[in-house]
């Protein structure tokens, strides 16, 4: 089994030159598919977008924080309000059956493998 069925796409499309943060992810593969977890704190459900176009899976999110009025930042480790990350999916993944769950800023994506790509035992006949 190849270990390149989800590879990071480095080229961010220059959409209006918007600067974004790269969310940290975990990608785990088992016999029936791939599970991807992404940390997107501050993004409400309606500001999250997960799309599969051709071979590319794109995760995008915009933060909305309950900011106090007249606030002046004194220390900021998170300086951009947007997340963006894309992955290239291999042919063996079933992109029509991706399921997603988003809870408290953590996105969990399940990408099953296409039926033909699931591991099977190959019987070797000895003649």
């Amino acid at each position, binding site marked *: 089994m190849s270990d390149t069925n989800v590879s990071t796409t480095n080229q961010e499309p220059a959409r209006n030159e918007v600067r974004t943060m790269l969310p940290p992810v*975990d990608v785990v593969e088992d016999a029936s598919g791939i599970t991807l977890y992404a940390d997107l704190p501050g993004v409400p459900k309606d500001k999250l977008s997960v799309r599969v176009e051709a071979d590319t899976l794109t995760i995008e999110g915009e933060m909305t924080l309950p900011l106090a009025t007249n606030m002046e930042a*004194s220390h900021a480790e998170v300086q951009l309000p947007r997340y963006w990350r894309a992955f290239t999916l291999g042919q063996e993944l079933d992109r029509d059956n991706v399921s997603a769950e988003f*809870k408290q800023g953590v996105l969990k994506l399940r990408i099953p493998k296409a039926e033909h790509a699931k591991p099977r035992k190959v019987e070797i006949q000895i003649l």
Partner: protein
Amino acid sequence: MYRTLFPGDLFAELDRLQRQVQRFTGPSTSIRGVGRNGFPALNVGGTPDSVEIYAFAPGLDPAKLDVTIERGVLTLSGERPNELPDEDRNATVHIGERFSGRFSRTVSLSDDVDPNRVTAEYGDGVLHISIKRHESAQPRRIEVKSH
């Protein structure tokens, strides 16, 4: 004639550069360090009547988050469970970037905050802590009377 081992004193130059960078990155350095790479990431801001802290801590159970204020230091601690499968299971971890394990971060508070008036809310994976300042510390307009 005396010559230094490092012409132009490279180390002094680096030192100067570092100090200069530090001057641009923040007005003061905390004794606990800046901790840019800690979990959770923190944003701190202030308004005339409160101090606002945002901790970017996704996927936590708010009941297991510990927030304490002691002697002017706010400590935020807890544990983030590891969701990655064990080694022996039939799964391969291709990318493992998310934080897991115990964490603890501290913020030094200014003297004018009231530790008895704190609110903490957890939503969309962000913990928002708001600490009110003492009334007496708030700017007040003093009226000038004329005789």
